[in-house]
């Protein structure tokens, strides 16, 4: 394969129009799913880039399963990223993280508490069964039951039940 000439000042369109369309249509959604897990936009965007690279390498842009694949991959990749974090780095990241997971607070003590809560949330997601954690990430990123069913390959009629179980497990774990 011959790549277009490289020009540091300009990015040449190297992907097909179909892939570009898919990327533009789904990028925000993929970031949103990863963000629900990671609570860090920069990290979520890195995950999204990796997810699209994986898809680009292995799948045609017009594949009928493209959206479902991207959604599921975003959740799983983000959960893998959380599990891969070192406990210490998680804590450091939490303290440096903008408090976008809770209401804005001015009190430094509350900010620290909020950050710790976010980290506990990530730890809970990391401990939960993969499908349950992914289901929460997808649902709270705004996916419909039908979209969740397609992404996680469960019956649409089962999503409500599975989601309730995931939420119950999440509450129990978070205390």
């Amino acid at each position: 394969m011959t790549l277009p000439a490289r020009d540091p000042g300009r990015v040449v369109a190297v992907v097909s129009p179909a892939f570009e369309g898919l990327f533009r249509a789904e990028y925000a959604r993929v970031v949103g799913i990863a963000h629900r897990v990671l609570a860090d936009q920069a990290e979520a965007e890195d995950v999204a880039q990796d997810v699209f690279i994986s898809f680009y390498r292995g799948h045609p842009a017009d594949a009928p399963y493209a959206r479902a694949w991207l959604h599921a991959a975003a959740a799983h990749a983000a959960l893998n990223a959380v599990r891969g974090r070192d406990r210490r780095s998680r804590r450091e990241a939490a303290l440096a993280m903008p408090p976008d997971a809770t209401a804005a607070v001015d009190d430094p003590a509350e900010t620290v508490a909020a950050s710790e809560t976010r980290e506990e949330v990530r730890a809970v997601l990391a401990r939960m069964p993969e499908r349950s954690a992914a289901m929460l990430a997808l649902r709270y990123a705004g996916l419909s039951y039908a979209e969740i069913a397609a992404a996680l390959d469960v019956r649409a009629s089962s999503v409500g039940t599975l989601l309730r179980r995931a939420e119950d497990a999440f509450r129990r774990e978070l205390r």
Partner: protein
Amino acid sequence: MNDTDIERALGTTEPHVNADDALARFQARVQTEGIAPVVPVARPRVTSRWLRGLAAAAGVVIVASALTLSGVAESVLKIFEPKSVVAVPLTQSDLNYLGQACAGLNLQECMGAYGTFEWTAPPQPKEVNSRSQASAQAGFTALAPTTLPSSVTGDPRYGVINRSTATFTFSADSTQQAAARQNRTAPPLPANIDGSKLFITGGPAVVQIWGAPAGTPSASGAYPDVPTLVVGQAKAPTVSSDGVTVDQLRAYLLSQPGISPQLAAAIRAIGDPSSTLPVPVPAELAISHPVTVQGVQGLYVGDNTGIASAVIWQKDGMMFEVIGSFTESQALAIANSMR
């Protein structure tokens, strides 16, 4: 904690993204790292590789399907014996996943990703001189087609494969290690599956192969690379289990990362997994549909060009397959002429 609390815990602020910038980053990375997109699947020309691959797939399915579908038993009981066949579409996604999982590995090593696979009696194919010899060694009457298309000429060659047995022992450690090597997280192996065993038998089998296309005899007499017709017949494979159930194994299989929604749906749709042999069919390369052959329901598999065909069916405890460069009607005529 109510739903609102969960929503708050999981973050309520939507990230603001700039898709243009993100796409530019993506394209720059593709360029910088020289990342190539998946090659679009062209309508494939039928090649010897395709035919050999299909024949190999039909053989491997005996073991592969046995490992993916097992059954119910309190002790060692026969829990899988196919009474029918069904196509299971493998998407490019599944093939990529399997390719990653088994890159550079043979079947035995690949199955090692989930536990220990051991041949207790490995398959040892050998050639014999006649159909009667093949029948005598296999222990059953090898059927042969009585009607052949004009493109199939000459005498067939005969191969016999002995009755083969293998044991597979599930291992949670192996599963986790294999997933870690792929930078993935495998779902936990249920405790009652960890350490349990499957006992697999396949064959004996007889294979009859017709050689080069008409008009192109091999001058050297060497065995042609591209058989025009392959007819296979084997005792139906069986699987016994020392405790794992069909539902447990199916649920575990479906929870694996990388299983496409299409494949999962197809596996889930199998009504009775203890008696249905799933035949993997590359979804982008081939078509398949049920057919009636020899009075039973079988499976037709053809490549997208309509040039190569395979018919697979099960009858009276035997598995049959007819593979070659035929149209569907020709392949069915051959299959129905087997006596």
